[in-house]
């Protein structure tokens, strides 16, 4: 069965609009292992001096740098993909959760077939992301289209209120 003509479940958010939503939060630094799904948002973020875009080698590093910036009075966040979240579970536990560091993450659903629900996607990195976040008690919201943009602020505020991790999951490629 082909899915090319199926109606999309997730609709791409304009990357510039997503970047503007990040700027509106007062974010000072976006720490990223670049995510293919958020390419246009990264391009928009890179076009202005604020927030500062920090490219790092691994998501483990991103967690540590995020903590150091938080401790010194800044308002950083992470922009990563689903595979990257899996790669940094130990630092998520030790720094974001145990050390009680506000850690807001935009996580792209790399490999998602946007014509299907997340649950119906066969790729493990797609359908295992939310159960993984659940397993660690990390709150999240889905960004399945432009109407979900207010959830970015909601999860950002959640991270700061709880002093811990919170995620907004970018369901398909930004436009």
């Amino acid at each position: 069965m082909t899915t090319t003509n199926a109606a999309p479940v997730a609709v791409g958010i304009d990357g510039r609009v997503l970047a503007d939503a990040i700027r509106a939060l007062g974010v000072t630094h976006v720490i990223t292992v670049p995510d293919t799904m958020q390419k246009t948002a990264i391009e928009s973020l890179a076009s202005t001096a604020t927030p500062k875009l920090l490219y790092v080698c691994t998501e483990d590093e991103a967690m540590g740098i995020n903590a150091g910036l938080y401790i010194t009075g800044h308002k950083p966040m992470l922009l990563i993909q689903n595979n990257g979240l899996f790669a940094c579970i130990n630092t998520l536990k030790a720094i974001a959760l145990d050390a009680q560091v506000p850690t807001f993450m935009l996580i792209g659903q790399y490999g998602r077939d946007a014509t299907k629900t997340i649950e119906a996607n066969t790729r493990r990195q797609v359908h295992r992301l939310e159960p993984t976040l659940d397993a660690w008690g990390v709150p999240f919201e889905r960004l399945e289209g432009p109407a979900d943009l207010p959830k970015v602020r909601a999860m950002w505020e959640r991270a700061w209120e709880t002093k811990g991790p919170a995620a907004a999951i970018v369901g398909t490629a930004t436009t």
Partner: protein
Amino acid sequence: MGDEGPSRGHRWNGDDLMLKQEAIDLLAKHRNGAISVTTMQSAAPWHLGGHTKSFHLEASACMGSASSLGLGLALGASDRKVMVLDGDGSLMMQLGSLVTIAGQAPRNLYHFVFSNGHYESSGNQPLPSNGRSDFVALAKAAGYPAALRCTTADELDRVLPEVFAKEGPVLVELAIARDDATPRWAGVPMAEMVRKLRSDLGTA
């Protein structure tokens, strides 16, 4: 002090290598208000020496993260020096952080690597490098503007003022003798230290 040359194997059993405690005492002597970040083998002696009362973060709860935490602190508090007291096994867990630190080039970051070639806390198993890797060369290849190695306490005492006078990032490999008697220490919960450091820095 040696800028060049291999750091392979032989040094880890030498009788003239500096002791960990000697390196700790000298780093404390030359600290001069810097934020300290310790992990693994440096954590207990730094704490027992009374050097963790302020402007300090201990990262043993997340082995490998000391360098990244130090980078975040250095970028965020650019008016204050940050000294990371890393371990060789710990740094190997996030070796790519050398590249990220070099790329960000924080002028206030001083990266000390306690290097004895072993995973001390788990029973002194050899590191995967088997003594063939060279942190000074790795740091330079990653893009650190300066990296050097100290093997004796006299040498370290002499070069530390020069090191802290340099613009960072600077990596100093501390070739220390193997220590089978490091005290076990439960540490302080990291959340407490995060709150304390934010209070020290006035960012709470």
